[in-house]
């Protein structure tokens, strides 16, 4: 049968944002694939060159709607590295707790979208319901639901509201109970398992060479988690384990994310219990010195990284953003070739695409 190219996107239920996947098919089998991104390019790096360091804070939030706090925090870390600011200990623990809540919310949104992609509407509703609990927690902490704008250069915006610790611990208890329920719900579904197990295998060598990071890398059997391997904030004092899975298929990515949520609950508990009293913010200078700053964090989707060049003024000379999904999606061809057209939804859904950060 003659081979032909098919466009999946930019308007397609699978894409979760605007991007296009071109696949070459021989009957039902994929023989080549080429993702196309750029539909959501807003030129954030250029915009940042014309804004002061403080004005960039809310822009950094807009990089990813699924995990905005993570990008806001990464930007603050990068500029703190450039300015040489030491963040107070209370702010570090607060950031860790908020980041892990964001990770759970982001993973739950992924789980909801993934279940809906695989034709399991009930999974969508359960995961979205429980995501709301963590959104509510973050709302009580920061004041907004999606783009939090919580971190500041030199700390965080506010201290915790009353009863925040009690509510968070209650939410963690609830979540840990619910994740056990999820295992029955998702893995009890024959359709979910049949579309997951053995689909989209990415070998360890390919994952390492193609720059894949985050849950897809750990699901290919490489234990690399920047919270452990290049620790930042107060992660070194917290007891948790990076999760790996040896298989490298869609099911492995699902397992890694599910267990990461349990680990995140553990981290939130420890961070809130160990949080010392004291200041939560130090003042930052208006102008940055001449030099460079580097920030590198474990985003829910992989390795987020920013590199800033300061020229002594109040605006960055250059701000470079590394998006984990931009690099991960370039490895899509290696995951897709050899599988059927019906597997595309599972494979690309399993990567947790967020086009806002990929296109910048």
């Amino acid at each position, binding site marked *: 049968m003659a081979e032909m190219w098919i466009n999946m996107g930019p308007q397609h239920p699978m894409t979760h944002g605007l991007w296009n996947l071109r696949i070459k098919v021989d009957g039902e089998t994929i023989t080549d694939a080429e993702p196309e*991104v*750029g539909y959501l*390019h807003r*030129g954030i*790096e*250029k*915009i940042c*060159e*014309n804004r002061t360091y403080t004005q960039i804070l809310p822009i950094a939030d807009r990089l990813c709607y699924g995990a905005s706090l993570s990008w806001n925090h990464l930007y603050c870390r990068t500029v703190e590295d450039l300015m040489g600011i030491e963040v107070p200990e209370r702010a570090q623990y607060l950031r860790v707790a908020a980041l892990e809540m964001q990770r759970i919310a982001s993973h739950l949104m992924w789980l909801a979208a993934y279940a809906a992609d695989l034709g399991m509407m009930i999974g969508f509703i359960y995961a979205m319901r429980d995501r709301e609990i963590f959104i509510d927690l973050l709302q009580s902490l920061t004041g907004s639901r999606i783009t939090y704008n919580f971190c500041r250069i030199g700390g965080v915006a506010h201290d915790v509201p009353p009863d925040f610790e009690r509510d968070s611990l209650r939410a963690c208890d609830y979540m840990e109970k619910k994740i056990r329920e999820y*295992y029955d719900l998702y893995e009890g579904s024959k359709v979910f398992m049949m579309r997951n197990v053995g689909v989209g295998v990415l070998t*360890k060598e*390919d994952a*390492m*060479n*193609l*720059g*894949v*990071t985050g849950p897809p890398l*750990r699901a*290919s*059997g*490489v*234990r*690399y988690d920047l919270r*452990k*391997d*290049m620790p930042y904030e107060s992660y070194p004092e917290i007891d948790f*384990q*990076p*999760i*790996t*899975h*040896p*298989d490298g298929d869609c099911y*492995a990515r699902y*397992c*890694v994310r*599910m*267990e990461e949520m349990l680990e995140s609950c553990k981290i939130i508990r420890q961070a809130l219990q160990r949080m010392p009293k004291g200041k939560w913010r130090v003042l930052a200078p208006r102008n940055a010195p001449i030099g460079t700053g*580097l920030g*590198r964090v474990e985003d829910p989707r992989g*390795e987020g*990284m920013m*590199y800033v*060049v300061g020229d002594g003024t109040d605006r960055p*000379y*250059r701000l*470079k953003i*590394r998006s984990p999904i*931009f*690099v991960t999606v*370039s*490895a899509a061809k290696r995951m897709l070739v050899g599988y059927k057209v019906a597997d595309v939804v599972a494979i690309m859904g399993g990567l947790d695409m967020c086009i806002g950060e990929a*296109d*910048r």
Partner: protein
Amino acid sequence: MAGSRRGAPGEGIERAPMKVDGEADERVIRTVIDSFPTTVKDFQKVGAGVLRAKIDRRDLFRACKLLRDRLGFEHISMISAIEYADRFELVYHIACYGSCMLLELITSTPKDDPTVDSVSAIWGGANWQEREAFDLMGIGFNNHPKLERILLPKDFMYHPLRKEYKEGP
């Protein structure tokens, strides 16, 4: 839950079982400087597990190959292109999974000839990042498999991250 487990540090990586300590840093420094005595400059430690070096652009490809094959730097994190008044600078952040080290390799090109050798044959992850640098900053990469615009439309006429391109009307 079936099958997933807590990994040991550096699990799944065969090469370069180094630890983050002075000895490993020194080993990297010595190997790279010995191999390129005239073109590697300013090798220094800038933070916990972060090294920085400047290298001549003619030796970039060979140095990267050596870093991956002999020192275990398996992961290209980020390629940033920066425009200065007199030069373009390319900053390669290269990470090692085993020793958790990060190397900042800086190379520069003159304004009238902004080209370097592509490293996408060494790390597949560099492919799209080099295309991005070409798209937004107009850096040419020799021997790149497909050097085309990636974020902007194919008929876009400028490289918008250059300083001569002004934002707004």
